[in-house]
């Protein structure tokens, strides 16, 4: 984990409200596990809390990393106004990423992503693809115009898309798509990875609770981002007496299915 001033290399609008931001700095040359994230100081000095974002792509050779984010509030709105050449204070790599050591070349893995959950999955997908894992991606969005990184995921392997309104791919939410098209997922895939809104995570958690290698990447409101303030906790699933919580920032953001109470 380091803290540094990274330089904005470029910023690019992908959809109505999703931006791709490429940052340069020494951090991009550190060892990363896909699923780890950064905390970015947004360019509005009234906003004191950093914003957590997954890392969508790493280019250690160029010393660059890519974030994908959606403008949902004041911080992301300010970020979308930042221009190339400006500097942003960034802290990372943070948290624990997706486990994948157990995967051998030729095995199959399923990536399940919704909305702004897809950035860390793309980083993971690129790495697994390189390692010879057979990838299938199931991505869901509200509607076609909100889709981004479709081509990028298609380049990694099979791709199934779902939209709530059927404007692209399957009509309905990803849970239904999983039931319809991936009824054999539990046995077919050696690993299942999911990131997205809570509804999506619950759908995956319910379906693959007993899968030995199914993982969810969670979001939570954070303050420190490093594990010292207890802002970001999530209860443990085992916790009937409410005796255990995990800190999403340093004990997560990735948890095995069945591990936490969503």
């Amino acid at each position: 984990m380091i803290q540094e001033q990274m330089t904005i290399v470029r910023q690019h609008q992908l959809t109505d409200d999703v931006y791709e931001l490429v940052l340069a700095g020494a951090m991009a040359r550190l060892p990363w596990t896909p699923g780890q994230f950064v905390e970015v100081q947004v360019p509005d000095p009234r906003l004191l809390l950093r914003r957590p974002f997954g890392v969508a792509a790493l280019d250690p050779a160029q010393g660059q990393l890519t974030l994908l984010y959606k403008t949902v509030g004041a911080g992301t709105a300010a970020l979308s106004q930042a221009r190339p050449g400006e500097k942003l204070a960034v802290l990372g790599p943070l948290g624990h990423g997706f486990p994948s050591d157990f995967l051998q070349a030729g095995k199959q893995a399923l990536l399940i992503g919704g909305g702004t959950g897809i950035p860390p999955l793309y980083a993971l997908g690129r790495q697994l693809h390189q390692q010879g894992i057979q990838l299938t991606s199931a991505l869901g969005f509200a509607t076609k115009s909100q889709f981004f990184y479709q081509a990028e995921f298609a380049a990694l392997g099979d791709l199934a898309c779902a939209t709530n309104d059927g404007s692209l791919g399957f009509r309905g939410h990803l849970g239904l798509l999983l039931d319809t098209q991936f009824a054999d997922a539990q046995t077919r895939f050696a690993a299942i990875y999911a990131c997205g809104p809570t509804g999506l995570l619950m759908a995956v958690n319910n379906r693959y609770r007993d899968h030995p290698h199914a993982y969810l990447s969670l979001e939570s409101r954070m303050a420190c981002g490093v594990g010292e303030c207890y802002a970001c906790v999530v209860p443990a699933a085992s916790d009937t007496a409410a005796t255990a919580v995990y800190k999403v920032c340093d004990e997560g953001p990735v948890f095995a299915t069945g591990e936490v109470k969503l």
Partner: protein
Amino acid sequence: MTTSNHDHQNHQATNEHPAHHLASADRLAVHLPGLDLKNPIMPASGCFGFGQHYAELYDLNQLGAIMIKAATNEPRLGNPTPRVAETASGMLNAIGLQNPGLEAIMGEKLPWLATNFPDLPIIANVAGTTEADYVAVCQRISQAPNVKAIELNISCPNVAHGGLEFGTDPKMAAALTAACRAVSQVPLYIKLSPNVTDIRPIALAVAAAGADGLTMINTLVGMRLDLRTRQPILANGTGGLSGPAIKPVAVRLIHQVHQVTDLPIIGMGGVMTASDALELIMAGASAVAVGTANFADPQACPRIINELPQVLDQYQISSIQQLIQETAVVR
């Protein structure tokens, strides 16, 4: 934006006649009951945990001291989430004193600090529900070799019992102070709440009851509502407001209390820069804790420590000790 954007200080250097410089180390040193600090800057309780993760970012030996997260007798899980919300130049938190409990703190956290940073003074923040809770924790934790002082948290706005109740009633505050003083092996600082009509009677009551010092301010009670969900953003409803937004309230209260008591004060509330820290010292503090700033800039504490000599020069202050003496109230 760079972190220096957070600096409100006057950019007009007025160091044409630089003050006589002490050796840098001596310039920053301060001495309070139980605490001989190489510099006046320490992370505030709850904003730095037990320091382990910040130690990955920088050498904690740079710090004057550490105020660790509140310790309660039993482990606490705190409040439901969301526990933090943002406000203009501030934040709300309702962590609810989550901590691993006295056993784990005595058995793991404090030993880790003692092993890795043997010379780093620790100020243990102590919380509880009943007087007996507070007394039990004070007695035990004050025996840890690296705990040099206790900060009695009688001002937490985020727990249903204990916390703020003790902090708003001079009699209760005094009784609790006396009971904890009796069992503590180290000096006892009382952390005062800003959420009162008049803070002075409480400061005077705990002073009379044997407090060795004061720390102030804890957070102001605040709330944010989410128009989309029509619910408070914090699951707890209200939370504690901290950050630069409250600095003027901290300066006022430290100044007020400094006028009526000789007890040393560790000041806190919205400090982001060395100038902010000096403003709190000028108000009457003898050392300064940095809370919310750690979230905006995880290197806030060492940055402020490094900025201090230059800002002292800028305002022709020879040492922190000089500024403390300058603002001493003649009684």
